[in-house]
């Protein structure tokens, strides 16, 4: 790691102000940024730690929705949402290991948009709204391919708002080494509308599997997806699995998620 200055603002205004400089970067849980800096692959001059900003903390329940502060850790979400949104709680409770879950945050994960991370599937499949210091961005407009989001320079996520679904589940097949998703599918049903979001599989990052959504909107059962899988073209191929294998896994994980959600 190169030398770096860490600032710890207490308010959102102070944080936004500190982020005004070109050479500064927000630091949430640090589960991606710190290892990258230790390898000297990133070298921000100033880190603006968000963990002490009170506006970003906490989880609140509204009418038919839950708003999760950007600095809520995965462990916090897993614990707090166990009853109110078990699918999202289970997703959060299976990210990384306990150390990661007690440091990593929902805001950090979504802003990073790792193509194999779990939260992007939860946010996109769960039809979340990403709230920033400046605006509200629907998940459908937030994710822009691997490690790319709609966030602008100096803009930070302050909270994520999830409407409560009638049924939802997340099924993930682990990459054997990292235990990131080789294919992870988040399925949520809101009345007649079904959303299916896939992470880990595509070279374009998280995406909605529309054919599956259509099949499920009339018949919310695993059988509705029998024999279905997305096109292998555009899927990631690496030493952990070919594009064909990933496409196949998406079908399997989608059926498993639906089976749980519909069960």
């Amino acid at each position, binding site marked *: 790691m*190169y*030398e770096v200055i860490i600032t710890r603002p207490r308010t959102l205004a102070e944080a936004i102000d500190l982020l005004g400089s070109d050479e500064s970067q927000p630091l949430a849980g640090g589960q991606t940024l710190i290892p990258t800096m230790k390898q*000297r692959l990133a070298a921000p001059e100033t880190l603006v730690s968000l963990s002490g900003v009170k506006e970003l903390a906490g989880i609140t329940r509204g009418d038919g929705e839950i708003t999760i502060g950007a600095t809520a850790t995965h462990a916090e979400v897993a614990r707090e949402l166990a009853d109110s949104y078990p699918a999202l709680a289970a997703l959060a409770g299976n990210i990384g290991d306990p150390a990661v879950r007690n440091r990593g945050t929902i805001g950090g994960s979504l802003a990073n948009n790792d193509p194999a991370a779990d939260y992007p599937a939860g946010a996109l499949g769960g039809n979340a709204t990403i709230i920033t210091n400046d605006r509200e961005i629907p998940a459908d407009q937030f994710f822009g391919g691997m490690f790319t989001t709609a966030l602008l320079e100096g803009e930070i996520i302050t909270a994520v708002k999830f409407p409560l679904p009638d049924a939802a589940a997340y099924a993930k097949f682990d990459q054997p*080494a*990292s235990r990131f998703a080789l294919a992870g599918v988040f399925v949520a049903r809101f009345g007649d509308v079904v959303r299916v979001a896939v992470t880990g599989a595509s070279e374009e990052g998280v995406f909605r599997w529309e054919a599956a959504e259509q099949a499920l909107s009339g018949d919310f059962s695993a059988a509705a997806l029998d024999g279905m899988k997305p096109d292998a073209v555009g899927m990631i191929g690496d030493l*952990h699995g*070919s594009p064909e294998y990933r496409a196949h896994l998406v079908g*399997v994980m989608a059926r498993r998620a639906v089976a749980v959600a519909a069960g």
Partner: protein
Amino acid sequence: MPADGGIGASTRRREDVRFLTGQGRYTDDINIHNQAHVFFLRSDMAHGRINGIDISAAEKMPGVLKVFTAADFAEVGGIPCGWQVTDRFGEPMQEPKHPVLAEGFVRHVGEPIAAVVADTLQQARDAAEAIEVDIEALPAVVDMAAALEDGAQKVHEDLKSNLCYDWGFVEENRDAVDEAIRKAPHVTTLELVNQRLVANPVEPRVAIGVHDRADDEYTLYTTSQNPHVIRLLMGAFVLGIPEHKLRVVSPDVGGGFGTKIFHYQEEAFCTFAAKVVNRPVKWRASRSEAFMSDAQGRDHVTKIELALDEEGHFLAIRTSTLANMGAYLSTFAPSVPTWLHGTLMAGNYRTPLIYVNVRAVFTNTVPVDAYRGAGRPEATFQLERVIDKAARELGIDPVEIRRRNFITEFPYETPVALTYDTGDYHATMDKLMELADRDGFEARAAESKKRGRLRGFGVNCYIEACGIAPSNLVGQLGARAGLYESATVRVNATGSVTVMTGSHSHGQGHETAFPQVIASMIGIDPSQVEIVHGDTARVPMGMGTYGSRSLAVGGSAMVRAAEKVIDKARKIAAHLLEASAEDIELKEGRFTVKGTDKSVAWGDVTLAAYVPHNYPLEDLEPGLEETAFYDPANFTYPAGAYACEVEVDPETGKVTVERFAAVDDFGTIVNPMIVDGQVHGGLGQGIGQALLEGCVYDDEGQLLTASYMDYAMPRADDLPFYSVDHSCATPCTHNPLGVKGCGEAGCIGSPPTIVNAVVDALQRAGHDVTHIDMPLTPSRVWAAMQG
């Protein structure tokens, strides 16, 4: 369990108190006043010609003491290889120079090109970024078969080719084996890969070099399994430091698995640089450096043919293997695919004719050397896989075909040069069938099927040769070292005992097990015995710990020294008791005149040895301290039979290990709990190889699995509960304790067990799959099922 904590007691490991409470003393815990730090600039290219290195900017960076390149090492030797293999034609292997810092070329990703020594590690690292290296890329040699083609790019320009050696064993049997295979009623052929692995001890390598100008003496603190071997290799062959001026210390070491046997450039560098900069120089590998600089393991590509008669009796075995050496020869690399592999090809079976061919190949990859099991897992894997395939082809039960070929009479001379002293393979298999509950398998398979899972049963036998010996034989085989072990047993005046052993513990529990032996021999409490190891200034010249040799060889040396001590103490006791030494027996810590109640306590005798007032000074020197060097007459031959049941998820290809039973014959067991732990650890590593681990380079020689993001280590939830049994013991006939060694068995026997079980599961479900190469990842198993 003996109440006295002696041989056979599952005594809790005394060293664990310090390990588990953060009191361990590892090399990185050592910080020497005024030490400087080194950062190695390593090649990010697999193969290239160094046209120039500009260190001028780096030298001016803050805190920099000196920037080293190959030019600074012009007067010192290369890193030596400790084993010379002679090829089929009687010629010595090709042996390239292995420089401390890259000389003219880089030959693998991670090879050190330059080294910056600075006040702080941060400064050294900053300065390393200011070094400008002009490297012209050369084609990388990665694939072994391609490396041996005519006109292939050479890894070493000054060698004839990329072939290190072409070894045949037993060469005289070659024609007879060919003929037997030609004439055999049935030949089963299997081509397979034993993939490359990274050892991954928890503690990365560390080295601290110290030079004392006052006496011109050097000390190297290093994470080694064998400090005397490092002292000899580095002192005599690399730096030219006489041994009496060089001390090597290996304190607590956090796991070795073979990769800490070898002498590495970083050790030589720190020792050398300490004198040049006149400061202690410290280096600690990052995990990334460990991935690209610790010697790696396995990496064999093999074709094996097994000839059988109609009843499934083995007639002949022929194997052809390409063994990857990497870019340079690591310390014992040439011995692994030859003498630690070819000699094991008989397994537990009567096969009259065997021929093993191994071609060792240089590639632009990290050097490969011994990794837990070293050659024996490779031999066992191919043999037990081809037997399983043959059984299926001939319609013979896999357990039955093994039983039909078991060696039953001992000693047994194999056609590949070994003489097994003891064993009872049928008894071991009987016990395994009971422990694994094979009779209950079908019911469990039916239950799995209800849950949509495919269940398979795999069985496997193994034999290994531990405690490589005797030294005069291994010398003929090419070893450039002796393979004895040493011990000094120092009895203190009040009767407590300090044992200085040449064995080295890096997780094996010597500090607990060795005192149990002494306690049993003398009849004192084990707490009265202390083990000293890992310091060339404190222990006699020893060969260290690897190849499951500590108790079999090091323990034997300790027993021999203790016998000498007891013999002398008996004479002192005879004097004190005014009896003849022949009439004195040592029991429960007292010397007694046989048939009388006249006795003297151990402590009184030891006190007399050091306060010799009433003492036979005319016949006996005072003091009670003896040293023994033990050179075994033969290898020891632990053997066992393993069985497992796996479930395959047919939708994803994911394999889970549901049951695992291991029956091992380790001979006499000193501490059953430690042995259980060694077996558990070995099984974990073997299951890791079978299902998860694999070191992969791309065509450019870039290491794709350079971190735990891509190199899959087994985690607790990847492993089943094990059923282990050691009751079928046939003690070794030629060492004083009857012990055989248990450190590697688990990782030798488990990979073929798992693969056999997965193939069984798939075949039972109607898939025409006869083999899948390890690791059996979900994607590979799924692909195999697609046909």
